[in-house]
């Protein structure tokens, strides 16, 4: 560890993982787990939604989030990667832990 706080996934990546693992999660809890503000989470979710990578449906007073499998990573070096394939791994790890 170099002591700097770098990670391999961006905050967009972290947020997407949280929504995929727990579709009913509250923004407040996403913020806490990822380590950013609730406002930042809202902005990121809005961006994911407008890119079609996250679908939001209203359930009573709350939102439920779905991450469609066919979405793709955005950087040209990773655009062949399907979001679903990446998340399958994350979900498998979540069940294991």
């Amino acid at each position, binding site marked *: 560890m170099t002591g700097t706080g770098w990670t391999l996934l961006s905050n967009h*990546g972290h947020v997407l993982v949280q929504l995929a693992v727990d579709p009913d999660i509250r923004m407040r809890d996403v913020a806490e787990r990822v380590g950013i503000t609730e406002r930042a989470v809202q902005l990121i979710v809005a961006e994911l939604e407008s890119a079609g990578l996250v679908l939001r449906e209203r359930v009573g007073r709350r939102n439920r989030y779905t991450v469609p499998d066919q979405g793709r*990573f955005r950087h*040209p070096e990773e655009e062949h990667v399907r979001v679903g394939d990446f998340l399958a791994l994350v979900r498998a790890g979540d069940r294991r832990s």
Partner: protein
Amino acid sequence: MDNTTRMTCKVFPVTSGVPGATGGAQWTFLTNHGHVLLCVARDPGSRLRDIAALVGITERATQRIVADLVAAGYLQRIREGRRNRYQVRPDRPMRHPVEQPHRIGEVLEALGGDDAGSPGACR
């Protein structure tokens, strides 16, 4: 100062036409550390200059990131004549608590990092 350090080749023109909530910022799911690691995983013999061009950052930034990845044990530096070769150590865990149950090798596999013939492979 090496002139090549200022040679940034922007390869990330997001033309999706989907404006983001923050004004269409060019966000990605991986950080530059993630992009660099993936490039090295795909082509361990690739030059830092080429990785820099593919990721869209400076060569200097690429050097710093590779140093971070080596220091964290994700990459192993192997001297080969006048060049360095970098080998990924797939058994290392991911760093962020959210992804910690995962080893880096699994993640790279999901991202196609083990497949040198994949469409986005580093050249």
